[in-house]
């Protein structure tokens, strides 16, 4: 995936509006989505050479409509059906109610009938305007696998009888939460991948931020949209400092904070501050607030841990899950000492998901090390290193254990 420069940015920004216009006119989301992809491809070839057309949106609609009509015609010819010529006359219209289309598309791509990987792939293609090849590269799968995932996703949407229309009010909030979760997953995939050599997946973080910004423009009063955007910006701000020159992960406490992206931090802090004071409270806002407290500490030692502990306690009430419990235990250890943190972890291993997860022993190891219990720390670092499926995390955990072994 190349960084969207001016031109690529333009056609990808227009993609959801063009797709919305086509789907509304012809009804067939699956075929319209393919046609828009072809039009984007045509734009990627022609615009850089011949210049951007005067009305790029209308140009894309015209090209995509023609492709769609050609396809419907050839399908119909094959099926020996009559062509309803009047209906199929390409009608170059203007991209319509842009904003609603983008949102309707996002909600459609995150349909409950789809598994998470399918939602992510379809969102990146239909709303993000990325090609199947670009998405496949980002997720390190063959293009054919990704193409299959996308076409199955569209088929499932059709089978579920979903239409290109906003969901009923009763469903809307729940569906919107799913959209935000999918955007969060795309961000996470990109952010965590930036430790590796795979540059293309790293750019998914930028794509997630771009899409979340677009949602924020449409729903300026939604506190959770603002919270999610703030969380992404505040997390992404640390990216320049989160890996060392050799690609090794640098823990938050050891990061060179002068390398954090101040502009992103300022924007994130302003967003979350505004959301917290004007909108109903939600988990993304609280997570963003926690990231903001970290961002505002000049050094790791200046971190306002009592405030972070309070925010995690709040998050435990709003959206309890084992990862929040883990993070709250870390905060409690920083405020009240490691034994308090360790006590909070008791019983967490009984959660089936947590039992085989490396993060529980990783946190325990850090807290044991803080408490000066070298043997327990070594055992837990070793266990965490065995359980993780991330190469940089494993390297970090092994290095941490080696250092402890050598230093004591």
């Amino acid at each position, binding site marked *: 995936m190349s960084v969207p420069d001016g031109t690529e940015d333009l056609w990808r920004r227009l993609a959801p509006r063009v797709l919305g216009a086509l789907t509304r006119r012809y009804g067939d989301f699956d075929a319209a989505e393919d046609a828009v992809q072809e039009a984007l491809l045509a734009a990627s070839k022609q615009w850089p050479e011949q210049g951007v057309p005067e009305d790029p949106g209308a140009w894309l609609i015209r090209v995509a409509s023609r492709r769609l009509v050609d396809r419907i015609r050839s399908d119909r010819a094959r099926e020996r059906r009559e062509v309803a010529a009047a209906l199929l006359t390409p009608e170059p219209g203007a991209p319509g109610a842009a904003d609603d289309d983008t949102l309707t598309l996002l909600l459609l791509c995150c349909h409950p009938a789809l*598994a998470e990987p399918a939602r992510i792939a379809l969102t990146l293609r239909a709303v993000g305007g990325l090609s199947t090849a670009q998405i496949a590269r980002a997720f390190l799968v*063959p293009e054919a696998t990704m*193409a299959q995932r996308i076409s*199955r996703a569209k088929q499932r949407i059709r089978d579920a009888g979903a239409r290109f229309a906003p969901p009923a009010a009763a469903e809307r909030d729940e569906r919107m939460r799913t959209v935000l979760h999918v955007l969060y997953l795309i961000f996470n995939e990109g952010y*965590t*991948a930036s*430790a590796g050599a795979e540059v293309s997946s790293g750019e998914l973080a930028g794509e997630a931020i771009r899409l979340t910004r677009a949602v924020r423009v449409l729903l300026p009063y939604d506190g959770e949209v603002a919270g999610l955007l703030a969380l992404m910006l505040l997390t992404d701000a640390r990216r320049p400092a989160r890996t060392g020159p050799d690609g090794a992960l640098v823990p938050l406490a050891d*990061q060179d904070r002068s390398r954090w992206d101040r502009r992103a931090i300022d924007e994130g802090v302003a967003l979350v501050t505004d959301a917290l004071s004007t909108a109903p409270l939600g988990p993304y806002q609280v997570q963003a607030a926690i990231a903001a407290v970290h961002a505002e500490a000049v050094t790791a030692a200046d971190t306002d841990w009592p405030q972070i502990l309070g925010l995690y306690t709040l998050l435990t009430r709003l959206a309890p899950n084992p990862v929040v419990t883990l993070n709250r235990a870390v905060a409690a250890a920083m405020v009240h000492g490691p034994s308090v943190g360790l006590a909070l972890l008791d019983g967490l291993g009984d959660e089936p998901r947590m039992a085989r997860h490396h993060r529980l022993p990783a946190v325990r190891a850090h807290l044991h090390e803080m408490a000066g219990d070298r043997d327990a720390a070594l055992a837990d670092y070793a266990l965490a290193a065995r359980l993780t*499926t991330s190469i*940089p995390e494993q390297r970090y955990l092994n290095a941490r254990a080696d250092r402890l072994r050598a230093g004591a």
Partner: protein
Amino acid sequence: MKYLLLIYSNAESWGHPIFLRTSQAREMTEDARSAMEAEFDALLTEIHDSGELVSVAALADPATARTVRAPDGAPVATDGPFGESKEQLAGVFVVDCATPERAEQIAGRFPDTRFGAVELRPIMGAGGQEM
């Protein structure tokens, strides 16, 4: 999450699908064998169509394997596979699934699980979270 599925089989003779070459499968009725093969085809179609199947490799007879060692620095190849157990590696699949539970579910549907075993190994990734 990507997983490597390793198909281990104690087949009487080599061929694919390997589960039909086991002594147990040979004793089954033709209908039962066909049904098992159809189940396997359905599984492959399902994970192909869903975009979960990343890659697949059916392996040749272990008799054709060469194992290379270099205890003294100079590589020496010998005939035969590295593992000496009766269950031999017959093929590998890479799947990319939404959850570990789904990967286990896919593994459990290989007919080979009835006669040999399917080993499920997570594939490590380059992404990681700072701690």
